[in-house]
C-alpha cells in the first residue's frame, strides 16, 4: 500500500509541451508512471514522447480516463489550470508551479472545499511511491521502496532526507512535498492522517520550516491521532527574523511561527525532533528501529 498514488494512477500533464513539462514527463515515464495524456490549450493533436496532447483537461479525462494531473503551467495561468483539473473530476492534482499570487490561491482553495479533488502544492516537488509511481520533479534514483512516510514543506530538503534514509537502509512508502507557499492544498494533517491509516507505513518523518502555524497544528493532531513514531526537523533555526509585515501579521500570529516554537510544540506531542541535518537519516534509523 501507499497513500494518494498507486499502480492505478493514470497521470495527465498540464503544460506538457513546455520545456520543464516535457523534461519531467519523460522522467516520470522512465520511472514507470502511467502517463496517459497531456494538455496544452491550442495544441491538441500534438504528441510529447508518444503521449497525446489535448486542448482541455475534460477532453483528456474523457479520452484517457486520467485520474491524476501534474501541473507545469506558468504562474499567471496556474490557478486556472488547477480549477480546470478539479472541474474535470481529476482525483489528485499535483501543482509544481512556483510563484502563484496568494489571492489566486485563496480563491482556488475556497473553490476546492467540498470538491472530491485533492490538491498537492503548489510550489512543491510532488509525490512519489518508490517503485510504483512518481509524479513530480524529485530525482527518482535516491528513493527506495520501504515503510517510512515522508512529508515536507521544502523540496530539496526532502531529497536530502530521502537520500540519507535510503543510504541508512530505510525505504519509503510514500514521500510528499506539500509545498512551501502560505496557501496550499493538502497539508501536514491530511498526510499524517493518511500515513496513520496506511498499513505499509511504520514510521513518519516530517520536515517543517519557520513561518505559519502548520507544524503547531500538526503537533496537536499527532498527539491525538497518530500512534506511529514521528521524527521531526525544522529548518531556519538560525535564520534572521523575517521582514516585518506591518502590525497585522503580528496581531494574527502573535509569537507563533518561530523555529523554537515549532520545535517545542512537536516535542510536547512526542515527536522525535532532531536538528543535525547531516545525521538525520542515521537518527531515523535508530529511532524507527526501537
Amino acid at each position, binding site marked *: 500500500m501507499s497513500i494518494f498514488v498507486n499502480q492505478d494512477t493514470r497521470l495527465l500533464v498540464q503544460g506538457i509541451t513546455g520545456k520543464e513539462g516535457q523534461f519531467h514527463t519523460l522522467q516520470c515515464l522512465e520511472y514507470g508512471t502511467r502517463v496517459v495524456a497531456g494538455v496544452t490549450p491550442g495544441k491538441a493533436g500534438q504528441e510529447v514522447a508518444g503521449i497525446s496532447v489535448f486542448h482541455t483537461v475534460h477532453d483528456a479525462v474523457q479520452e484517457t480516463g486520467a485520474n491524476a494531473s501534474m501541473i507545469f503551467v506558468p504562474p499567471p495561468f496556474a490557478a486556472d489550470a488547477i480549477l480546470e483539473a478539479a472541474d474535470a473530476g481529476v482525483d489528485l492534482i499535483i501543482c509544481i508551479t*512556483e510563484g502563484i499570487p496568494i489571492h489566486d490561491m485563496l*480563491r482556488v482553495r*475556497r473553490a476546492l472545499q467540498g470538491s472530491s479533488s485533492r490538491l498537492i502544492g503548489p510550489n512543491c516537488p510532488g509525490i512519489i511511491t518508490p517503485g510504483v509511481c512518481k509524479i513530480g520533479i524529485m530525482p527518482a534514483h535516491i528513493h527506495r521502496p520501504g515503510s517510512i512516510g515522508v512529508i515536507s514543506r521544502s523540496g530539496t530538503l526532502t531529497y536530502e532526507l530521502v537520500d540519507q534514509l535510503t543510504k541508512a537502509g530505510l525505504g519509503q512508502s510514500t514521500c510528499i512535498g506539500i509545498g512551501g507557499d502560505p496557501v496550499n492544498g493538502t497539508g501536514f494533517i491530511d498526510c499524517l492522517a493518511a500515513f496513520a491509516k496506511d498499513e505499509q507505513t511504520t514510521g513518519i518523518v516530517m520536515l517543517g520550516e519557520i513561518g505559519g502555524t502548520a507544524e503547531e497544528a500538526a503537533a496537536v493532531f499527532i498527539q491525538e491521532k497518530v500512534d506511529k513514531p514521528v521524527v521531526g526537523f525544522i529548518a531556519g533555526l538560525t535564520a534572521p527574523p523575517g521582514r*516585518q509585515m506591518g502590525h497585522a*501579521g503580528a496581531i494574527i500570529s502573535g509569537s507563533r511561527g518561530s523555529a523554537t516554537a515549532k520545535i517545542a510544540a512537536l516535542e510536547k506531542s512526542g515527536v522525535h525532533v532532531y536538528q543535525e541535518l547531516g545525521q538525520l537519516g542515521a537518527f531515523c534509523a535508530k529511532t524507527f528501529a526501537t
Partner: protein
Amino acid sequence: MKLHEYQAKELFSRYGLPIPEGWLAKTPEKAMEHVGRRGFPIAIKAQVHAGGRGKSGGILLASNMEDAYKAVYSIHGMRLRTPQTVGEGPTVNKLLLEKGVDIDREFYLSIVPDSSTGSLLIIASAEGGMDIEEVAATHPEKILQVQVDPVMGLQEYQKRRVAYALGLTGELFASFATLLAGLYQAVLENDLLLAEINPLALTVDGDFFLIDAKAKVDSNALFRQRKIAAQYDSSEEDPLELEAQRHGLNYIRLHGNIGTIVNGAGLAMASMDIIQQAGAEPANFLDVGGGANEDMIEHGFQILLSDPHVKAILINIFGGILRCDILATGVVNAARKTGLQLPVVVRMEGTNAEQGRKILAESGLDLITATDLNDAATKIQELCLT
C-alpha cells in the same frame, strides 16, 4: 513589495478613501515652499519603509513657521532608526506634508490575506493609534477579526459587523461602510498582502481620514500589477539584494563570511544552520529556486563574489527541477569570468548530478568537492580553521 505612505494613500484614494490634503517634497526647500503656501497645523512625515516612524522622530507636527522649519530640516536627510528597522535605518530623502485634521476618535483598520483561515481577514479596533500591537497583546477582546470568504467577497452584514463593533451607527455607518468596501476592493484589485490604516481618524466634524496608511503588494503578482511595479523605490535596498532581484534570485545579505548558493528555501535555511553549527557565520541566504537557468546561477555566483566579506563559498544543490548540469555550467562560466580566487566547496546531488560533476571536473577549476552534507560541513569547518 512595500509602498511608501504617500503611494499607499494615492492608491487607496483611487478607491474613494478619504486622505488628508498632502504634498510630496524631495528637498527641504520644496517642503518649506509648501508649508508657506498651505498654512498650519501641518504634519511633516518621513517617507521611508520603517514602522514606528512616529515614536522615532520621523513624523512631526508644526503649528508655526519656525517649528515647521525645524521639523523639515531635522527629518530630511536623517537616518531613521526605529524598533522595526535594521542597522542604522534608511535615509530620509522624501517628505510628505499633510494638512492637520481635528481628530475626535482614532480607529485601527487593516485587511490581509490570511493563509491559516483561508480568508481575507479584516482587523479592526476602536483603539487605534500607535500602540495597536500592545492592545492586541493585552486586550485581544478589543480587536475584531472578521473573515471574508475570498470567493464570495465582502458582504453587507460584514460591513455592519465591523461598523457596529467600532460604535459607528447612522450616517457614520454609511460612510464607514463605503470606506471599508473601497479598501477591500483595493486589496483585491492590487494583489495586496497588507492594507493597513492606523490611525483611521474621525474628525470632530464627522469625517473620516486616513492619517497613516501602509500597503504591501504580492511580488508574485507584479506581472499583472505593472503600474505598481513601476512605483518601486529601490533607494532603501541593499545594492546586492537589488542586483539579485533583477536576476530573479532570492538573496538576503547577512553578517557572516561564508557565502552560500542553495536551491530551495528550506535547504538554504538548513545550510545556514549547518554553517553555524560548523562554527562559522553565513554571509547570506541565497535560494536560486527551482526554475533557475545558467544565467541565474552565474549572476548568483557573481553577487557572492562582489561581497567583500565573503571568504569562502558553499554550493549545496540537490537537483530536482534544477538540473545539476545547468548549475555546473553556470558555476564554471561565472568562475571563469570573475577569475575566481576563493575556495568553493561544491556538494551536488540529484537530477543529472553525474553530468554536473563531470562538467565541474572537466572545467579545470580548483573546486572542493564534497561527497555528502556531512562531508561538506567538515570541509567548511576545515576552511574556517585555516
